[in-house]
C-alpha cells in the first residue's frame, strides 16, 4: 500500500508549541485512522506527545475533539477508518479545542 499524505489542523496553542503553520501534513503508510494520524503526528512532532491524548492509554484529552467532513468523530474507535476524503487529503482532519475558559 502506498503512503498517503493526510492534512491535519491543530489548535492555535499546539501550532505554536510544534512551531508549525495552520495546516500540517503527515505521511500514513497503513489505514488512515485517528490512531495512525496521531502516531504519525507525535513521531514528527514529539513535543505534542501527551497534549492531544494521554500517554500510555492514548485516551483523547477531555477538552479536545476530532472533526472531519463536518462530522464529530471523537467518539469513534481510534481504529475506525476515517472518511476517504481525509485519507485522500481532500479534507483535513481537525483537532479542535473546546470553546471554554477566559
Amino acid at each position, binding site marked *: 500500500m502506498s503512503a498517503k499524505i493526510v492534512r491535519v489542523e491543530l489548535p492555535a*496553542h499546539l501550532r*505554536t508549541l510544534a512551531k508549525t503553520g495552520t495546516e500540517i501534513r503527515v505521511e500514513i503508510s497503513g489505514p488512515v485512522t485517528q490512531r495512525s494520524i496521531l502516531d504519525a503526528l507525535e513521531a514528527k*512532532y*514529539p513535543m505534542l506527545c501527551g*497534549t492531544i491524548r494521554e500517554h500510555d492509554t492514548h485516551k483523547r484529552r477531555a*477538552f479536545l475533539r476530532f472533526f472531519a467532513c463536518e462530522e464529530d468523530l471523537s467518539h469513534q474507535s481510534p481504529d475506525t477508518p476515517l472518511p476517504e476524503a481525509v485519507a485522500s487529503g481532500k479534507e483535513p482532519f481537525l483537532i479542535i*479545542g473546546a470553546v*471554554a*475558559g477566559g
Partner: protein
Amino acid sequence: MSSVRVLIGTRKGAFVANADGKRQKWNITGPFFAGWEMYHVKGSPADPNRIYASQTSGWFGQLIQRSDDGGKTWDVPGGAPEPKAGMQQGQSNKFQYDTSAETGKPLTTHQWYDGTQHPWEFKRVWHLEPSLADPNTVYAGVEDAALFRSTDGGTSWHELASLRGHGTGPQWQPGAGGMGLHTIILDPKNPKRIWIAISAAGAFRTDDGGASWKPTNKGLYSKFLPNPTAEVGHCVHHIAMHPQRPGVLFMQKHWDVMRSDDAGDTWKEVSGNLPTDFGFVIDVHAHKPETIYVVPIKSDGEHFPLEGKLKVFRSHNGGTDWEDSSQGLPQNNCYVNVLRDAMAVDSMDDCGIYFGTTGGQVYCSPNGGDSWAPVTEHLPAVLSVEVQTLK
C-alpha cells in the same frame, strides 16, 4: 556590576524582568507561552542560563519547558523530531506515579473531600526545584501530591515513590486548591536532606536522598482537623530557609506563622503581633537569617489584605516581633492576593525582595523591605516569582 533576572509565572504566560544592580529600571520580555498557565519558572543555581518552566492547560495538559540561554529561547526537552543520543522523546510531560512494590509500597488512593478513598491522578506541576549542583537534575512537586526527579534536564521523570508510600499517604486530603506538593527545599549542606510540603497534608523530610520520609509537623495546630495536632493533615502554605542555616525553617501555615530550630522536628508559633497570621508567602533575607517577610492576608474566607492595604510585614528577630514594611505599596482599595510561590529574594549586597499579586503587579524592594516600587503592574494574575542574581 551584578544584575538581576526576575522570572514571573502568570495565569496567561511567563515574563522575564531584567535590571541592573540598582533595580530601578526594568526591561520586561514576554509573554512566553502566551495563554498558558505558568505555575512556576525557576533557574538552576549551578547554571543561571538553564531555566525550567511548568506550562499547563486544561485543554492540553502538562508541559515542561527549558531554556539554555537565560530565558531568551525555550524548548520542550526531548521534543525535537531528531532525537539526541540517549534522549527520550516526548516524555518530558509524562509524570507516571510509581506503584511498584520494588520502589515503595503500592499506593493508589488518598482521602477525598467526603472521606472516601480516591485514585491518585496527575494534574499539573506546581513547583520546579533545580539541583544546587547539577543543571540537569531538577525536582518537580505535582498535584496530586508527589515528588518527581529528572536527571536528564527534564527529558524524563521518575517518582520518589517512598514519599507517598511511607505510610500516611492514604490520609492526605486535598485543600480547596487541590492536593499539590508546592514546596521543595534542598539542604545546601547535606545533599541527602530534602524538605517538602503539601496542601493539605503538611511538611515532610528525607535524610537519605528520598529513600525514606517522615512527617515533620509536630507543634502545628490546625483547628479544622478533628485532632488539631495530628501527624498529618495540616495545610502548610509555604516554607522558607536561609541557605547558611538549613536547620532553621520558617513556615506560613493556613493560619499561623511558625518556626523550627531543629530542621522541622518541632515547630513553635511566631505570629507575634501580626495583624492577621493567615497568608501564603514567607521568605528570608539573603544575608540576615533572622530577618523574614510575610504578606498578611485577611482570612481563609477573604483572600485579600486587611482594609484594602497591601502590606509586607518584616521581622528582624525570626518572628515574634513584626513591623509594617510597606512603604510604596498601595494603601487604598487593594484587594489582591499573593500566592505561595510568588515571593523571592535576590543575593545582592543590599538584598532585594520581590513579590507578585493576583492583580498582576510585581513589586521589588531593593533595600531589604524599607521601600517598594513596581517592577510591572498589569500582568495576568501572578502565580510565581523567582529571581536570579547574575554576576
